Structures are given as structure tokens and as C-alpha cells.
């Protein structure tokens, strides 16, 4: 049974899907024998796997409650402790969440992309680099990236949605192409996607001018750009491409960890 638990956990990691491991940490009375037992729970309705089956103890209802609690923990991407009091004794569980990893798409394979891809991979983002210049979107420049894609920006970005109408909330997009027209083209493509993070490089002046232009020429109201992190990155005085990559990655971490730090965006608008 242990083997089935482990196989379920490794298979889920390979499929890049969220999974929770429920473990019995402590239990009293008739339930004491459950300590160290496990249940693997997925976010969808798949039948949980493991040796923590309570039907034989007439605690089937409690099991349903645990599975729901584990699914809630998955939703919140947060490890959770559970305590229950039953007629048979108290029981304490730990829900360990193995969240779906965040994907990071870097549009533009230039000077900032190289250190950003390397560092983001270290921080366990699944990195895809995209550029329309094959000599830049080259595997040898991004040895640790999950994917390196060469092709027209908009077409390839659409293809990266994987057949879905929008990107999912586990995807981050950083726009650092060589020309602002490409950044803007991609920005408009994903403006309504529920991305975890959407950032665009450019100076304060440049960004303001771009948003004003889009409002004037395309009638896109300013508030629709509110969630765009532009200028991109945390304010750390970054100057070199590597330092800018650090500032961007720091902002990505702050956003994906739910601790919005003071970005450069807030101070510029």
C-alpha cells in the first residue's frame, strides 16, 4: 500500500498536477493504530489512494470530511493541520500539499531572458522561452529551460495555451521582447486571460505612452491594464540584465507566494 501511495505521488509530479498527502500524525483510543497511515487526494473527484480507509471503523462520514478538507488545502496551495474529535478518540492529521508548479513563459530570448530562465528554473518554475529569432530561441542558450520555442510570437503564444481558450491561473507571462510592438501585441492577446502574473518591460515613460496610445487608438480603458506589472520587477535599483532578472523573479515570487511586495508598477501610476 505504501508503494501505491508513493507511485501516486510521483506520477502526479510527472503529470504536473496538484496532489495532497494526508498523514495521521497522532490519534488516541481506538484510532491509535491509524498513526502513520496515508491517503493521497487529488483536486478532482478521483478516488483517493492509500491505507487510511475508515469504512471499517464506521467513520466513512469523517473520511468524506477529510477528503473535502484536503481538496480545500489544494485549492489554497497551503499545508494544513486537521483535528477531529470522534466517539472513538481524537485524531490529528497533516495535509501536505504538492501544488501544481507554476509555469513561466518568457517572451523574448534576449539578455534578460537568459539569467531569468536559469534562476526561475532553480526556483521551480517550469520555464518556456519564446522568440521569433531561432538563433536566440536556441536550446544552448537555455540549457535548463523546459521548452524553447522559435516562431512567430502571437501564433506560438496561442499554441502554448495547449488548446484551452485562455492560459490558466498557474501560468506567468513575462514580456521582454526586443521591440515594444511585440510586447504590446502579446499583451493584447492575453489581456483577459486569468494569468497568475503578467509583466511587461519598459521605462515608466514608455509604458505610460503605450497605455495612452492603446486607449486613444483602440479604445481600451486604462483600468484594463491595472494588473499588468509594468514597469516590470521589484524596485531594487537593478541595472544589468542579470539584476533586472533578479528584480523580475523577486516580483514573480512575491505574487505567486501571495505576498505582494512593492513593485515598480505601483509607484508609477
Amino acid at each position, binding site marked *: 500500500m505504501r*508503494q501505491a501511495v*508513493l507511485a501516486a505521488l510521483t506520477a502526479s509530479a510527472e503529470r504536473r498536477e496538484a496532489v495532497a498527502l494526508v498523514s495521521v500524525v497522532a490519534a488516541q483510543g481506538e484510532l491509535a493504530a491509524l498513526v502513520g497511515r496515508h491517503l493521497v487526494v487529488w483536486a478532482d473527484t478521483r478516488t483517493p489512494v492509500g491505507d487510511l480507509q475508515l469504512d471499517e471503523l464506521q467513520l466513512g462520514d469523517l473520511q468524506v470530511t477529510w477528503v473535502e478538507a484536503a481538496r480545500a488545502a489544494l485549492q489554497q496551495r497551503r499545508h494544513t493541520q486537521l483535528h477531529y474529535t470522534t466517539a472513538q478518540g481524537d485524531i490529528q492529521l497533516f495535509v501536505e500539499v504538492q501544488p501544481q508548479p507554476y509555469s513561466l513563459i518568457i517572451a523574448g530570448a534576449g539578455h534578460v531572458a537568459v539569467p531569468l530562465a536559469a534562476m526561475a528554473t532553480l526556483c521551480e518554475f517550469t520555464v518556456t522561452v519564446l522568440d521569433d529569432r531561432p538563433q536566440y530561441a536556441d536550446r544552448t542558450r537555455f540549457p535548463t529551460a523546459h521548452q524553447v520555442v522559435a516562431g512567430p510570437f502571437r501564433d506560438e503564444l496561442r499554441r502554448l495555451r495547449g488548446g484551452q481558450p485562455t492560459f490558466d491561473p498557474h501560468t506567468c507571462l513575462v514580456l521582454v521582447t526586443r521591440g515594444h510592438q511585440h510586447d504590446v501585441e502579446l499583451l493584447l492577446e492575453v489581456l483577459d486571460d486569468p494569468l497568475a502574473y503578467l509583466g511587461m518591460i519598459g521605462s515608466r515613460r514608455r509604458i505610460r505612452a503605450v497605455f495612452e496610445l492603446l486607449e486613444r487608438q483602440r479604445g481600451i480603458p486604462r483600468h484594463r491594464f491595472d494588473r499588468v506589472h509594468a514597469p516590470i520587477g521589484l524596485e531594487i535599483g537593478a541595472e544589468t540584465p542579470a539584476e533586472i532578472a533578479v528584480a523580475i523573479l523577486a516580483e514573480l515570487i512575491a505574487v505567486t507566494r501571495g505576498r505582494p511586495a512593492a513593485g515598480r508598477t505601483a509607484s508609477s501610476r
Partner: protein
Amino acid sequence: MGTTFYHQLQQLLDDGMSVAVATIVQVKGSTPREVGTKMIVHPYGKHIGTVGGGCGEADVIRVGLDVLVDGQPRTVRIDLTEPIQMESLGVCGGILDVLIERWCPDPPAEQDPR
């Protein structure tokens, strides 16, 4: 891919090793690692991961070796609230509860893993 904690655990079991898995399940105050941090306690000292190092981790390893012998899962409380003047390293000011369990290859090896 293939380098997650559970892949490393699977590899050890596939190699016929029994190991103890330590998981931080609760913290109070300031602690070196967060809830959910995991570590493999290896019978020959080739541990994987860290629950924060120092004396606290030494306790986890010691209990892990006990768990390897008797197979009884248990929770240890690591108290890092000693006064700073005690000069012991790794004093952060918090308390952590660490669940430690034995994981064996299938079928479970019955012999003493040492």
C-alpha cells in the same frame, strides 16, 4: 523532471533501502524551515534535505534512526527557544513538531536496517 522528494524516496526504496521520512507538521514562533518541509533520514547517514540543521536536526536524525528500528511513527517536538546566551547554534526562538515515519521497500524488509 523526476527530482522531486518522492522520486528520491522511490529511488532509495527501489535500491532496497529502508529510510525514515521527517516532515515538519507544525511550527510556533520563528523557525528555520516552514511547515511541510521534508527530510529523509538515511541509515548510513546519507540524509537528503534539511529540517533546519543544528541540534534540532540532530534530534530528528536520532529519532529517525529509532523509527527505522522499530517502525513506530512518532512526532518529535524540537524546541529552539533556548536563551541566546546558551551559545548553541541554530537558536531561532521557535518550536517545531516533526512527524517521523519509516518507509520500507515492498515487501517490507523485516531485518534490522542497520
